[in-house]
């Protein structure tokens, strides 16, 4: 390597005129710990859809910023969330990913959360209802009335999605989302949605890199499917990014030409008339919510990506697919097929997108040589502009009080 090339490698591409981030933001374990505290512990997070809890006493378990959480539909129909921890000795309360409390546990009766360790019981509103041999052990020093589960702020909104916020007494969800959902809401909130797909994967990469993949479409060069169904079609470069307060970004609509994918007519073209309320057939809109959710409405299927960062270089990604609750069996089968043809674990695009961020994770590891990475494409906020990524890092930098991100 010549001296000139060596010195060029360490400099920012294009000098000071181009927006960049230091790769340290993907690799520094200390920064990651701050992210959990300042971002993931202090944001409204979309965690699941209410159709995963259709009946009273249905529950789901999840994790936010390393805190285990129960999401539970009460007997009154209200969805609530609690830390999945027994206040007695800190044991996990519910182990299953989902279930219904009507089924009794070996340690306690039905319609209650029972800690398997010492059989303390809680009702579906989080109130302790039973402490075995309480009087004998605690006399009058402790009563059930003094014991509750730690409730987590929870709202059901924007198409029936369940949102949680770990911090006590957060500002309302609508203040956090603002107008970012306005373009999608008519398609998602006019009638009930229903989940039909869930799968997950743990990927060795930093979580922000997955959000970037959902926030910039310059990487469409990676996908044969997107090149032929979108990039080479009219309107592709007319799509625009719009940034909103709190780091959210939307991408405006286009119509995807599935028939351009060789043999695509076999599996996708007959879905042209199957869409969502108010969405033109094969229309496509996308919303990226800070810090790590993507709402991707494309043709007949709605895809939701949610993330649970596990460490600075490992993230759990969950993928959901949804249709309309009123779908006929035939309509539902078409939505499932359309969703999974592109986005399923055996789909055309998802393995490529995941391979892309795995490769980034391998190239940028903790304690590796730092890079200055460009987020600098400016094309009038059209689809290959990186306006969305810059908006994300503007918010990230504000939250983290960290100046290494792009300005």
């Amino acid at each position, binding site marked *: 390597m010549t001296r000139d090339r060596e010195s060029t490698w360490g400099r920012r591409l294009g000098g000071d005129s181009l927006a960049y981030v230091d790769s340290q933001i993907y690799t520094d374990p200390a920064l990651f710990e701050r992210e959990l505290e300042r971002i993931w512990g202090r944001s409204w997070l979309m965690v699941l859809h209410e159709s995963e809890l259709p009946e009273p006493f249905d529950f789901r378990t999840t994790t936010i910023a390393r805190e285990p959480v129960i999401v539970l539909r009460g007997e009154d129909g209200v969805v609530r969330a609690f830390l999945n921890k027994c206040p007695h000795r800190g044991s996990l309360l519910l182990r299953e990913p989902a279930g219904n409390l009507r089924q009794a546990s070996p340690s306690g009766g039905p319609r209650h959360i029972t800690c398997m360790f010492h059989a303390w019981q809680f009702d579906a509103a989080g109130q302790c209802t039973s402490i075995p041999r309480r009087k004998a052990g605690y006399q009058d020093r402790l009563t059930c009335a003094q014991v509750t589960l730690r409730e987590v702020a929870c709202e059901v909104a924007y198409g029936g999605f369940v949102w949680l916020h770990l911090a006590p007494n957060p500002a309302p969800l609508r203040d956090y989302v603002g107008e970012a959902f306005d373009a999608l809401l008519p398609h998602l909130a006019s009638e009930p949605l229903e989940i039909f797909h869930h799968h997950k994967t743990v990927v060795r990469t930093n979580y922000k890199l997955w959000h970037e993949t959902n926030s910039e479409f310059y990487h469409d060069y990676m996908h044969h499917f997107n090149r032929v169904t979108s990039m080479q079609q009219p309107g592709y470069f007319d799509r625009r990014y719009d940034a909103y307060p709190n780091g959210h970004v939307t991408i405006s609509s286009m119509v995807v030409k599935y028939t351009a994918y060789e*043999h695509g007519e076999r599996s996708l073209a007959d879905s042209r008339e199957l869409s969502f309320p108010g969405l033109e057939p094969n229309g496509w809109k996308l919303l990226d919510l800070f810090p790590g959710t993507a709402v991707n409405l494309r043709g007949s299927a709605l895809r939701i990506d949610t993330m649970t960062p596990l460490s600075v270089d490992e993230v759990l990604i969950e993928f959901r697919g949804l249709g309309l609750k009123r779908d006929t069996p035939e309509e539902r089968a078409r939505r499932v097929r359309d969703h999974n043809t592109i986005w399923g674990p055996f789909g055309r695009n998802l393995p490529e997108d995941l*391979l892309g961020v795995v490769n980034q994770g391998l190239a940028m590891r903790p304690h590796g040589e730092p890079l200055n990475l460009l987020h600098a494409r400016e094309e009038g906020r059209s689809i290959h502009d990186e306006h969305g990524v810059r908006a994300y890092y503007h918010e990230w930098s504000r939250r983290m009080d960290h100046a290494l991100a792009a300005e």
Partner: protein
Amino acid sequence: MEIDELIYTGCLLQDAREFNAWLELTAPELTYRIQAYSPEIRRAMTWLEHDRAGLAALFELTPKHHVDHAQWHRHASLYKLRVDDDRAQALTSLVVHHTLVDVGDTHRDSGSTRLFAVGRYRDQFRLHQGRWLLSDRTVELDTRQLGIGSHTIV
């Protein structure tokens, strides 16, 4: 070819990525699907479903995508076989390992073998001109975390 040999030959052909040769073992009315049950959403899911022509198209298009080139090894064990005249049904246990080539840390991991998935084939066969053909296959996967996923059928 007897049914057990047909199932095992199918595995060998798929391991060798001889997918068109594998299609020769199937009937024109073939339906192939990959399914899994999600305890998270408490629903059965169909992750892939194709007829014979759809599978042929899938095999033709796969080279146009960025794919995982791992060497797959399908280990099948025929558990149940029921033959009724010119029709048959089989239940086969399936374990799929893959030996890594170019996904992940190639320098460290290429050549290492990992479990990809476990599950079952639920197959139906039809006797056609003295020859058994696979007419319907449902791959029931127990494994629901599949890494980056796959462009290849199981």
